[in-house]
């Protein structure tokens, strides 16, 4: 199925990976850089219906018909010649068996040179099933992932998603080609010089203040483990109200909770500088904004140091995160970080001397999915993004889903065991309850 405005005839059959896409492809050589989403379903979703829906979905999205080939020292998307989206169906043996299966998806590398960059595993029993959708991170971000799932659910319930146009030219233009004027040409060079000065100042300050403090271990190998946690509606409401009372974003509040809990369990010093990573969207900030219905990895990241005291003022930590975020946003760090990321990843893998951070948080805000879709009902939604031994120690993708905060936490088994990961999650909840 293609739209009436199909322009594939005029589109280049390939284009070079740029910025964060390139960084993610480099990272894939170290650890498969996958995004894993899980839809928990009650009721019947016939496999034939799912198969058909995946085929239509692939026809609607050019990036689902893509593979990645090396071109000199770089890589390029090639938009042709990929097989159908693989679908594997297994019996669901245990209700929470999906967690181990989702963890396995992080170990399985995509055949990048053959494509496609999406696959599905459906764990089914008489009551329903868990649909595990895995994509390579180069073609999806949080904004487009939620729309892709919504589109897939529509197709599975026999509805043609008219509100989502078929994406005939998807992936044709890399994000840097659409940067605003202030971050192109000479403007980019000026902003980059300023960005590098800030990064170096932060690096020196971090090293100075971290003297004598625990250093996160760097293991040769490690497995990415998953821990799904939900905050009850009552606490979620309190956090939203506290956000408005204190005029601090929910993203900053949740980040402060994470940092405080990680400090408590992993960094026993009274005052610790911790690196925190948050993610921002480029889609609305391009010369031609890109709709979230268009697949692509158009996220970027802000990384900064926060001083975290053992027993300090929670709201000061949250404000510090918010202030650091505001500076990064105001100075255009979203564009610079996106473009600089391949160099940063190469340096990190070559040196193997430092971790990206202590914590990373991706807060997606409210997510809407239809509660019922034809013969089945969506009862849960989880999403995880791959981590590695040089990545942050404690990472979470968080969303507001049906009135509750759903935390999907990732940690490396080389850093901590499940007990410690659960203790940090429990501390996080206690700290946030106490704060509001």
């Amino acid at each position, binding site marked *: 199925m293609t739209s009436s405005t199909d322009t594939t005839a005029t589109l280049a059959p390939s284009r070079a990976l740029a910025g964060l896409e390139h960084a993610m492809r480099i990272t894939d050589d170290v650890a498969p850089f996958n995004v894993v989403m899980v839809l928990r379903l009650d009721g019947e979703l016939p496999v034939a219906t799912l198969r058909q829906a995946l085929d239509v979905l692939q026809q609607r999205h050019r990036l689902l018909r893509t593979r990645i080939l090396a071109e000199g020292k770089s890589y390029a998307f090639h938009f042709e010649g990929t097989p159908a989206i693989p679908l594997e169906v297994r019996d669901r043996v245990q209700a929470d068996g999906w967690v181990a299966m989702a963890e396995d998806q992080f170990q399985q590398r995509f055949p990048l040179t053959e494509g496609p960059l999406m696959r599905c595993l459906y764990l089914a029993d008489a009551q329903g099933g868990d649909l595990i959708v895995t994509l390579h991170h180069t073609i999806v971000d949080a904004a487009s992932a939620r729309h892709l799932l919504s589109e897939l659910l529509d197709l599975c319930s026999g509805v043609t998603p008219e509100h989502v146009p078929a994406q005939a030219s998807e992936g044709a233009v890399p994000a840097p080609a659409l940067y605003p004027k202030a971050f192109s040409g000479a403007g980019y060079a000026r902003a980059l010089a300023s960005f590098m000065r800030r990064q170096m100042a932060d690096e020196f300050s971090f090293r100075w203040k971290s003297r004598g403090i625990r250093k996160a271990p760097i293991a040769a190998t490690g497995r990415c483990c998953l821990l799904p946690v939900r905050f009850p509606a009552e606490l979620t409401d309190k956090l939203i109200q506290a956000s*408005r009372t204190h*005029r601090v*974003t929910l993203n900053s509040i949740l980040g402060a909770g994470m940092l405080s809990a990680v400090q408590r369990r992993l960094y026993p010093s009274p005052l610790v500088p911790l690196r925190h990573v948050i993610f921002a969207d480029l889609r609305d900030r391009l010369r031609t904004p890109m709709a979230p219905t268009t697949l692509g990895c158009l996220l970027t990241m802000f990384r900064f140091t926060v001083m975290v005291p053992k027993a300090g003022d929670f709201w000061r930590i949250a404000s510090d995160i918010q202030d650091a975020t505001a500076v990064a946003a105001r100075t255009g760090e979203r564009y610079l970080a996106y473009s600089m990321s391949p160099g940063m990843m190469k340096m990190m893998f070559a040196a193997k001397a430092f971790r990206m951070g202590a914590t990373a948080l991706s807060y997606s805000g*409210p997510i809407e999915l239809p509660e019922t879709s034809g013969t089945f009902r969506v009862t849960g939604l989880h999403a995880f993004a791959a981590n590695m031994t040089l990545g942050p120690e404690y990472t979470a993708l968080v969303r507001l889903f049906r009135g509750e905060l759903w935390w999907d936490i990732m940690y490396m088994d080389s850093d901590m065991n499940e007990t410690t990961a659960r203790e940090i999650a429990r501390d996080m909840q206690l700290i946030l309850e106490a704060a509001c």
Partner: protein
Amino acid sequence: MLIELDDVCRTVGLVLGRHDPKPDDRIQADLGGESIDVLNIIVTLQQKYGISLDEADLVNVSTVRDLYHLALKRSDAPT
């Protein structure tokens, strides 16, 4: 208090430090609002009009006009 589109535009402009935003301007893409600005706009509208805006409703808000319609929906004020 009566909620008017012009007043919502003025409020958004004040919070963002923008002169004369238009109803169809997108708060983030066109007016450069960051998440903290969106939070400040929400709190200001809540205080000004005595309304409560649900977090989940905000997912469909892109433009100043969307925000006005949401505020209207959440208020008992005559239109």
